[in-house]
């Protein structure tokens, strides 16, 4: 057995993760061709690198197929029921910052709070005969947030990409999505509600609470965590 470390398989998230580990003396690198998802770990023994889509890392941690994994806490909390019983956040990595927010058209000058959103949703349903649609891929987090905020008469519609365009395309009245600078929202004539975000997320190193370990694995994991200083 070896300790398996799951890391996002492409893009800036992968590069920044490699940099973060590198700065702590653990060298992560891809092997083989540019297109092959294989990698190695240098600087510590007994650790395997597993390159995965960031969206799959929560599931792999919860299933215990990887011992450590780097992903956003937005994905962990959306995808895992009772996430804190399945994984332990070891340390935030200081990049990949993003907020999950609720956003409405800028022209809705009467809507800035959840209280407003609820009022607008009631009037919308009475006028149009169906519930106000909010496009998102974070169904659980957003539903929970809106329930706690006392918003009724809405429905979530699934949007796995280009969510900011759904309002203009008349497939949703509002959206809930991840944003870093708000630039794309503004470009699409949307504004963020003047409320705390649904979730503040960043890339985080998680430990699986369920992955099986031999005594040797335990030592390896301890040595790795010591090296990383987390």
């Amino acid at each position: 057995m070896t300790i398996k470390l799951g890391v996002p398989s492409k893009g800036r998230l992968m590069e920044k993760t490699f940099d973060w580990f590198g700065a702590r003396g653990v060298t992560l690198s891809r092997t083989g061709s540019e297109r092959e998802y294989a990698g190695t770990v240098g600087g510590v023994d007994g650790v395997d690198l597993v390159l995965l889509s960031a969206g799959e890392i929560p599931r792999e941690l919860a299933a215990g197929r990887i011992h450590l994994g780097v992903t956003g806490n937005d994905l962990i909390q959306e995808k895992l029921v009772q996430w804190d019983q399945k994984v332990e956040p070891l340390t935030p990595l200081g990049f990949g910052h993003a907020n999950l927010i609720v956003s409405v058209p800028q022209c809705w000058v009467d809507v800035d709070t959840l209280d407003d959103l609820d009022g607008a949703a009631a009037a919308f349903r009475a006028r149009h005969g169906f519930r106000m649609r909010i496009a998102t891929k974070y169904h659980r987090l957003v539903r929970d947030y809106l329930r706690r905020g006392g918003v009724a008469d809405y429905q979530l519609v699934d949007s796995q990409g280009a969510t900011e365009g759904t309002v203009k395309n008349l497939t949703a009245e509002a959206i809930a999505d991840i944003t870093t600078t708000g630039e794309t929202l503004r470009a699409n004539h949307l504004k963020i509600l003047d409320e705390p975000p649904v979730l503040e997320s960043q890339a985080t190193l998680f430990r699986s609470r369920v992955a099986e370990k031999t005594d040797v694995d335990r030592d390896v994991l301890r040595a790795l965590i010591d090296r990383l200083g987390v």
Partner: protein
Amino acid sequence: MAQDIPYKSRVRIEAEAICDDFVADGAARFETDILLPAEVLLDLYGEDIRARAYVTTDPERGEMMLRPDFTVPVVQYHMDGDGFPASYTYFGEVFRKQEDHPDRRSEYMQVGYEEFGGANAAAADAEVFGKFSDALAPLGLRAATGDIGILIAMVEGLDTTEDRRTALMRHIWRPARFTALVKRFAGLTPVPPSRAALLATDAALPEAEVMIGLRSDREIASRIAALRADAAEPPMSAEIVDLIAAVLSVSETCPNALEHLRDIAVDMPGLLPALDRFEARCDAMAKCGIDVDALPFEASYGRTSMEYYDGFVFGFYSEARPDLPPVATGGRYDALTRRLGQGREIPAVGGVIRPDLVVELGGLR
């Protein structure tokens, strides 16, 4: 899981026996599909049901839902029929996601009894409660009762604007939001800065915004007008706030609760018709042999359950096993028949028993 089979058989036998007793009392057996069209249920219950029910898609029939309860199908069945009063009983599996309680079953059996068209609401409420109370008597459960109709009457009778009453009525089933609205209407919470800024401008609709989406500028302007009108209204009085809190906190035996609520009704006369119904129900219950003097009543009971109960509500709980969900729940849902009946409304009251919990608590026989 092989060891589950005898357990499931025991639950089914218990369910059949309870159901047979309801049939012997004159109820007709009702059956329905497990896979139901999701649209009606989603429209009724909104996102709350999506969080709790299993939704799946059929390429031809669209969104479908694994039966979360029998209420909607049985109401639809009755309302499609000849309209004569009738009572139904059924049993079968229902499916609920248990995100907050992963240790609880997501597939379990329900036995139900529903009565439609009873002209005398008090008598029907008492009869249905009595049936559940009798059926469950061997388990020695604690009964809880409430009456959403009293809360509705309270809101309808509030000395404030129609818009405020409507807003409060919408949130009777969301206690935290209801309280927040009461505080805002009473001027006890500060106006959010964004709202203050909006109201400080004179324009009906600020210009130079790119209009996108289905919600039109007229709808926005009309909400702004409503906000302005509300801001011009005096706050709800502290007396009303106290009366609302007093009603919501009533929790004692039925006769004491009635007396307490009648005291409150001196300053809140809108409650009186609902309290007369409460009293009539207590009398009817006593006639059915129910020990009303010892029966608990909580004015807030049933507020966090599904939105369709609008009158008498009840539940039965195991005091020995507080970890279990209620063994039975039920109530009056005339409003649901109105929503599903396209203009028609039929008095309806009923409830469900969980035979798996009955078995867990030792069984009825």
